[in-house]
């Protein structure tokens, strides 16, 4: 049975415009700093009738009580008893059993449903969740076998949720005034909550496009770049960890929404299955909501030989390219072809891959404190067949072992 040790601690994150922001968050390393978002917990369900009990030990190193909610999970217990909201003098002080500073508390729950979930603080959640005390849980179906065709799925074989690669995007907001008030021990008026930064896996664009585990972002270990080859099915998991709703729009294609809040979008009876999945090009990821979606890109014939797209590249000296001093473009309209770019241009294009933006269409959210580019934005990169290393978009079967 998986056991995860989490510490609620503080730390700092960096934004691309040079700010350092104080956060509260979770880490799974003793003595570690807060990580944004918290460590991703990935669980594979047991074959029935065995049930998958997950144990989470929370040690509180913050100066006030902290707890963890497990929305969508079954039979959440603390020390063997069902979790309950906590009251002091008749007043609600926590949505679930909490852990005092310096203490450790043990939660258990049963992972009964495959899908994408959140875990987040239930104590002073208006403050602690925006401060960073949140993370994602991925529950895999019991028949999940990443090396077997038809068994690498979000919800189980035969559910139409097969995928080749998967990416998790946990989105949130940051009001720096809240973070500064908490750091300095000053009061903060929740009514004036006003995000100035928006995060995707804890990072603001353009840091979202950097790889995982870059040295200068030690507490924001996860990138948000989505990479695939044509025809591959990519499972994109959105998790709305902030307090606002974000309309996320991937360029390049629609997604098919196959799961919502950790539930397969299907009605099943013994005799009948009604598939309720549908396609969208902009998904409003609500506060606390998760969406599992399949994205593919199957553009045809976009190479110089058959040339189904009649394209004459204009004289590039007449065009605006890389106005910020860099470009993701290859210099060619064709997949897998690198063209000539004006001298002095820094191109981050590797092998002629296509880059499609994925971003919030509430466009002020793609700024860092009002300056574009930033915030909830990343790229989807379509690599020519056979050029994308296998490890991209490969999350482990389980994160914290048996």
């Amino acid at each position, binding site marked *: 049975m998986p056991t995860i040790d989490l510490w609620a601690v503080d730390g700092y994150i960096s934004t691309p415009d040079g700010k350092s922001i104080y956060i509260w968050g979770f880490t799974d390393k003793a003595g570690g700093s807060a990580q944004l978002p918290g460590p991703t917990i990935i669980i594979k369900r047991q074959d029935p009738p065995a049930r998958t009990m997950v144990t989470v030990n929370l040690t509180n190193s913050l100066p006030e009580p902290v707890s963890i909610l497990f929305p969508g999970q079954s039979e959440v217990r603390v020390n063997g008893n069902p979790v309950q909201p906590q009251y002091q003098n008749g007043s609600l002080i926590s949505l679930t059993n909490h852990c005092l500073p310096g203490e450790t508390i043990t939660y258990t729950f049963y992972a009964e449903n495959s899908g994408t979930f959140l875990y987040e603080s239930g104590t002073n959640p208006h403050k602690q969740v925006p401060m960073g005390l949140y993370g994602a849980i991925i529950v895999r179906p019991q028949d999940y076998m990443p090396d077997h065709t038809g068994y690498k799925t979000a919800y189980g074989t035969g559910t139409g949720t097969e995928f080749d690669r998967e990416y998790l995007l946990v989105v949130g907001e940051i009001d720096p005034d809240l973070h500064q008030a908490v750091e300095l021990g000053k009061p903060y008026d929740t009514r004036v909550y*006003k995000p100035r930064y928006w995060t995707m896996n804890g990072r603001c664009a353009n840091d979202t496009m950097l790889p995982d585990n870059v040295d200068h972002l030690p507490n924001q270990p996860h990138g948000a770049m989505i990479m695939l080859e044509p025809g591959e099915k990519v499972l994109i998991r959105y998790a709305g960890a902030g307090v606002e*709703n974000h*309309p996320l*729009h991937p*360029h*390049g*294609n*629609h997604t*098919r929404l196959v799961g919502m809040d950790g539930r397969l979008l299907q009605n099943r009876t013994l005799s009948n*299955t*009604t*598939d*309720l*999945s*549908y*396609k*969208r*090009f*902009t998904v*409003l990821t609500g506060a606390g909501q998760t969406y599992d979606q399949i994205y593919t*890109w*199957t*553009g*045809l014939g976009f190479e110089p030989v058959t040339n189904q*797209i*009649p*394209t*004459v590249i*204009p004289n*590039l000296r*007449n*065009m*605006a*390219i890389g*106005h910020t001093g*860099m*470009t*993701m*473009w*290859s210099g*060619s*309209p064709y*997949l897998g072809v690198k063209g000539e770019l004006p001298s002095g241009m820094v191109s981050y294009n590797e092998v002629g891959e*296509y*880059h*499609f*933006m994925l971003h*919030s*269409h*509430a*466009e*002020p959210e*793609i*700024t860092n*404190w*009002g*300056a*574009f*580019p930033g915030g909830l934005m990343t*790229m989807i990169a379509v690599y020519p067949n056979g050029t994308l290393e296998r490890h991209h978009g490969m999350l482990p079967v389980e994160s914290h072992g048996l």
Partner: protein
Amino acid sequence: MITRIRRSATDGWVNTPDGRTHYIFGFGDISGVPENELVNYRARAELMAPPLLLKAGNEYIVTLTSLGTPTRPDLDDPHTIHYHGFPNQIAFYDGVPEASVAVPVGRDLEYYYKPLDPGTYMYHCHHEPVEHIQMGMVGPLVVYPHDYDSSDPAYKTAYGYGTGTEYHREYYVFLNELDCSIHNLVATVQEPDWTEYRPTYWLINGRAYPDTIDTPGGSRLQSQPWPALIKANAGERVLLRFVNLGFQQHAMELLGAVLKVVGIDGMRPLGQNGEDLSYNKNIIYIAPGQSYDAIFTAPEAPDMYPLTLPFYNRNLIKNNSGGVEPGGMVTEVQIYAPGSLPHQTEPNQA
């Protein structure tokens, strides 16, 4: 055969019912305009942008020509066309300057499209999108099914013959907001802080009520040629093409008729086995960057023609124009006796 369409990118001014004018960037239709007359189209941006009407399976070249911004001659921003939602787009024609090319002042770029999927889409500039979208470089894009035939009731459809999307009339419900202080800052060469975005006007088809129910033309609204008045004969099926290119979610409510949602983001709502997931609504919630196709049947009302159905934003505070109510996202559906209105051949044709 390739159809050629041409759009200008330039600036201009729009008007709100309180008599104020607001500086915009935007697109104009310069299809067929001779090169030596293009100069006359500077500063003539329109809000909403001229619709791009395409047919599935046909080929198009849309030329974008940047005519500059006479009110801001200092500005050297390039522009693009992003065909929002185009399935299986290639990066070169996706209009994202960071992943393709953009069009500087005085230059052209030809975008090639061969749309295969019918539905309601949208287009906008993607250079500094937060600024260029708010400044007005936004418009609807409709892809008609390959078998579309406006003269044959079985083939005048949103998604093709036999898809249950037949209609008699179609109208845009194109939504965005306008923050007048930001438009003023841009007009006066100042940098806005976009996290302070706070709209002061809420627009349908580029107009605030009561301009929404005004007729086309008139010098005050020359940059806003699209009324949002919806007219139909009783018993007709009316297709509303909702697009939201503002930065807020909206809630458009129709009183007196039921909206059947037959398209979401340019796709019929169909499950993996073809399950029909269309549904009925009174209010369409629509987030930024989304589209909906909804069809209602104009109700009969003998002795009451023309019958008026209110159509407005249920986020009621958005029903104001610069602080005057009613205003903003409010318009009307007017229903006439059967046979009163002639056959509609173009969207929004009254």
